[in-house]
């Protein structure tokens, strides 16, 4: 909190300057609010043609996305459909799959890493691990994508996907290593740092008297962490999950590079092959399909995808606020 305002300013002019400064800074703050409003309105208005042409089935499945995009690019409508005909389900499914799988695996890994960092790591190891986490957070997504497509995808293609497996789905889709598994692996690494940072911070902020109480009851250290610290840090871990979900949802470049690049809805009924099938999340689709044209059918479809992402981001932002509320009760801030 700022200290009390000065009671006896030196001159009238100084007071006027102060007030002017407050108003100018306040105007900037209002400007930020207006900017958000402008963003929501602009994107929504420009997305409307695609939504109104397709109705709620925009979110459903139907037809082949490749031909749908081709129709829009060439301005020749598909037979019996409008030009803006578009069914986004494969993209939404791809987004859900990559996000949920990555966040779930990152949740397990980041919790273990956070416990390690706050409880078990000797100082020397911690001195290495902290810069490592910062490094992982700082690597640009295009570098992750490059490693994914030039190192990991070829390796998976050569070593994990057997030829019979490729042949089993050859009439539906081609397996080449750029797939759901590669995408999920790299996405997990990308969202780990923020989850580790938030979980470790919350674990360290758990009042030591709580842990001491548990230790005094004869509970060993691991169970104390598991039953007391981790439980108290749960809201912070939830906040980390929300932030990580937002990041995974919005990741475009890396996923455009490694997820296979065909708008195919990977099918869990295919058994293990499922992991090797390509996906194409929403954000990556914007990068792949947008060609610089700002008013055509493709553009309106891309705007609609952006609107869905923006709406999800707003929802997640609200969810992040909501899960942080119990933390205030504990006095463990995020």
């Amino acid at each position, binding site marked *: 909190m700022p200290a009390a305002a000065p009671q006896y300013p030196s001159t009238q002019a100084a007071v006027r300057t102060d007030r002017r400064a407050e108003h100018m800074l306040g105007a900037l703050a209002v400007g930020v609010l207006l900017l958000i409003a402008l963003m929501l309105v602009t994107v929504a208005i420009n997305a409307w043609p695609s939504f109104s042409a397709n109705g709620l089935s925009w979110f459903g499945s139907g037809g082949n996305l490749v031909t749908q995009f081709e129709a829009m690019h060439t301005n020749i409508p598909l037979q019996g459909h409008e030009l803006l005909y578009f069914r986004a389900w494969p993209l939404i499914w791809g987004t859900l799959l990559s996000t949920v799988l990555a966040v779930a695996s990152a949740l397990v890994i980041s919790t273990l890493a956070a416990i390690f960092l706050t409880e078990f790591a000797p100082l020397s190891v911690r001195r290495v691990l902290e810069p490592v986490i910062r490094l992982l957070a*700082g690597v640009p997504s295009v570098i992750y994508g490059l490693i994914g497509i030039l190192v990991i995808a070829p390796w998976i293609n050569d070593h994990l996907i057997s030829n019979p497996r490729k042949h089993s789905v050859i009439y539906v889709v081609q397996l080449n290593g750029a797939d759901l598994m590669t995408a999920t692996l790299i996405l997990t690494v990308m969202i780990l740092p923020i989850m580790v940072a938030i979980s470790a911070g919350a674990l360290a902020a758990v009042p*030591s008297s709580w842990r001491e109480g548990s230790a005094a009851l004869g509970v060993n250290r691991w169970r104390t962490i598991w039953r007391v610290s981790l439980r108290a840090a749960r809201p912070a871990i939830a906040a980390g999950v929300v932030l990580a979900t937002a990041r995974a949802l919005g990741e475009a470049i890396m996923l455009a590079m490694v997820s296979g690049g065909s708008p195919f809805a990977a099918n869990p009924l295919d058994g293990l092959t499922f992991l090797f099938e390509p996906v194409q999340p929403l954000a990556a689709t914007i990068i792949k399909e947008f060609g610089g044209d700002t008013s055509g059918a493709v553009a309106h479809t891309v705007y609609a995808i952006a609107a869905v992402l923006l709406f999800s981001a707003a929802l997640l932002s609200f969810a992040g606020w909501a899960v942080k509320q119990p933390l205030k009760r504990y006095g463990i801030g995020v």
Partner: protein
Amino acid sequence: MALAAPAAQPSGPPLAAPPRETTASWPLADRVGYWLCWATGVGLCLIAGSIVLVMFVKGVSSLRLSLFVQSPAPSLHQSQAGGFLDPIVGTLIVTAIGIAIAAPMGVALATWLSEYRRPAWLARAVESAIEMIAGVPSVVLAIFGLLLFAHGFFGFLSQSASNGTVTGQSFLVAGVIMALLAVPLVAGATGEALAQLPARTREASYALGKTRATTIRRVLLPSILPGIASGVVLGMGRIIGDTAIITILLGATLKNEPVGELPILGTLRGTGSTLTSYVYNNSPAGEGNAPQKAYAAAFVLLMIVLALNALVTRLTGPRARRTDTRPRIWRLLPAGWASWSR
């Protein structure tokens, strides 16, 4: 049964750091958990190590000095495809524009939020707004920028065709939207630094009869310069590393293509590329497909990012840490980092 000899400690450390304990007495499940923790810790180090190693080996082997001074050229052969002079210049321009806007804006927002904060509901709304900007995917920000700046009204920022349509793609436009990416980081770092200043700093200034505006300008901001600087460097890192905004708002063309006759303004209004879009276009996912070039450019990019990382560590380093009142573990990441959600 559990803790090994906690009793014989006459005036030892508090129990929060208990005497060294072996896991021998733990049940098997607990010991498995303990070793899993070690495995993840070591695994993270290995992942980071292999990323750096791969980039280093591949990058150094395909890096030539000539790459830095040649412009990219269209060619089917990697050897004739030129270097990445234009992308490096592009990266510099976009970062400069973005930071020139984001730094004052972020500092001003954080100052208002921390020092004035009136009316309170507005302050809360602005805080959520900044948090939301931090949470919006950069590809959506790019689409927003395109919709905004492709209007005829903003034609002077980019190229307009003869029939009146505006491309909405230029260095200026990309820089402005990049600023949005960096504002939450600058504001977050500044806000945390302001919150950590002891109350006596402000009170001493007020006691001398200084107004709030003078206090902010002469006392508060100078004393949190390292905090602001670390926010700015973090913001630069975000701008340099972003690709989505470049591909959509800068065109990601082969060369930087100026518009019109004016030397500097023409470049700013024209399209171009940066290191990130150069890497993307030269990867198998892009049109160029020249992995050697992509590796070389990615290596340069990674070195820049690592240097910025080290700079942040220095800025929030031992000297700055003495004034950092956060629990030690919070310093794992620089102040304001948590507000970054991408």
